[in-house]
């Protein structure tokens, strides 16, 4: 049937030789690195086995969840705190980002110096992990949701500013030019030519960032930002596992609801097309 079985076999071999030659060294380097890391971190299958009984004892200690924890005003209040931090932080972050994006957009800011400075500032913020921002803010304004809120506002600028600037640079230039030719001021150009075009992407990205910030706000609580993340960490550290489970369930419900609301608003405000 096959006229050249030998030749085909050779071709196959060549193919595998090439494949292995390409991936052999990177692959073995990767494996060695991985094994070395496992040894350096002291990670072994034993830890999995030893974790299993701990897991079951944890579960038995968590049930039934202690819903009474919400009768303590502080815990209930911390849910509001985390929502407020995320909401206000995202709002202020959006405002900052919008102004920075105006300065960074090539079609709105003619000065290359200002543009580069604005772009550099946003890139610098993106590089800085939020942990650094919150730790410094706690020193400056003290522990609590205020520090967390500012950290979220600052932490939003890098990503939102970049996305907003890109959206502004991609607007249709015709309305812009016609407004400029009628002698409109800069503000009028932004209000009537730029804003209507970028509004959908602006709103969609802001709502998306709110979802991210709400999760980040949980983390900030652990390092001094206040909110339900702090309460959860506290309950876990004090081995109050039944409280912890109740708080966990509540956190999940709140995060889920917030996501549903932002989804609803996105659809309501900008129609079916969901931009990200």
């Amino acid at each position, binding site marked *: 049937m096959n006229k050249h079985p030998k030749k085909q076999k050779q071709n196959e071999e060549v193919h595998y030789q090439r494949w292995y030659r390409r991936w052999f060294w990177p692959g073995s380097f990767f494996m060695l690195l991985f094994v070395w890391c496992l040894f350096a971190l002291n990670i072994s299958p034993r830890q999995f086995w030893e974790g299993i009984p701990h897991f079951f004892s944890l579960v038995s200690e968590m049930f039934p969840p202690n819903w009474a924890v919400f009768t303590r005003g502080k815990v209930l209040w911390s849910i509001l705190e985390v*929502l407020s931090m995320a909401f*206000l932080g995202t709002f202020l972050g959006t405002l900052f980002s919008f102004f920075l994006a105006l300065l960074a957009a090539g079609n709105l800011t003619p000065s290359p110096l200002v543009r580069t400075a604005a772009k550099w500032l946003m890139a610098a913020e993106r590089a800085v992990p939020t942990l650094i921002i919150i*730790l410094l803010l706690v*020193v400056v304004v003290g522990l609590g949701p205020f520090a967390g809120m500012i950290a979220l506002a600052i932490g939003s600028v890098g990503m939102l500013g970049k996305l907003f600037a890109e959206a502004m640079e991609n607007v249709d230039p015709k309305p812009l030019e016609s407004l400029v030719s009628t002698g409109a001021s800069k503000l009028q150009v932004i209000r009537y030519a730029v804003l209507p075009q970028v509004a959908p992407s602006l709103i969609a990205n802001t709502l998306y960032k709110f979802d991210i910030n709400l999760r980040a706000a949980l983390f900030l609580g652990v390092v001094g930002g206040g909110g339900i993340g702090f309460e959860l960490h506290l309950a876990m550290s004090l081995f109050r596992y039944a409280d912890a489970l109740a708080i966990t369930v509540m956190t999940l419900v709140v995060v889920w609801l917030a996501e549903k609301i932002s989804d609803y608003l996105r659809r309501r405000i900008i129609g079916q097309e969901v931009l990200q």
Partner: protein
Amino acid sequence: MIAMKLTAIKTLSRYRSYLFPVSILVLLLWGAAVVSRVDPAVLAAGIPRGIDLLGHMLPPDWAAFPQLMAPALKTLQIAFVGTVFGILAAFVVSLFAAANINPNRAVRETMRGLLSAQRALPDLIILLFFVAIVGLGPFPGVMALAVSSVGMLGKLFADAIEEVDPRPMEALVAVGATKGQIIRYAVLPQVMPSLIANSLYRFDTNIRMSIFLGAVGAGGIGFDLVVSIRLLDYQTAFSAIIVVLILVLACEKLSDVLRTRLFGQEVLR
């Protein structure tokens, strides 16, 4: 005069539809400001304190750098091992979640459901649960990173697998190849680029997470940063900040270089 009044009324009526949503927004913002204890006085008092802090941080404690190398390496190792475990788990799950590999609809839907449930789970909760189960240290950190990567990676992998060219697969099925052979020879070569690109992207995310995990108790550079700030040792803190920034930027650069090296110009995300 009348014309001016008329345009004013016209403008007002144009904005009237915004009145209700905007007033709700203002009300919410005000409430949020009260709850998060926004206080301009605190901020005003904080600014000189911030400048003072900067003065205390400069110059960084150069002698601390050698001591910070080991924790930085640990952060890197935790991120790496966590990401690799996450990739392995995500790949296995994605095979069960892809319609062209797994014909069983019930299993597929369950896997997709699990993946989206994981994505809905905040990472902090995952981490705190692992800390409660196995105690502090790098192991819960690795597990938290692995589990938190599965949802996103698994979905992206499954979508990539479903989008492969079906012809090589059909040809292999026709010659009677086993499932393992189909995956190895028809699926893997096609999804490899997107698999590696997404994994590298996830590694970038995980290195930041790993820094944060250190602060919560997994060990590594994040822990040193938090401790030095708590001890008011701001010069060491500044050194730790520099190390963190170098770590983050170097990893981003490395994954960028790898991405372009492996796939040429087109950068998949």
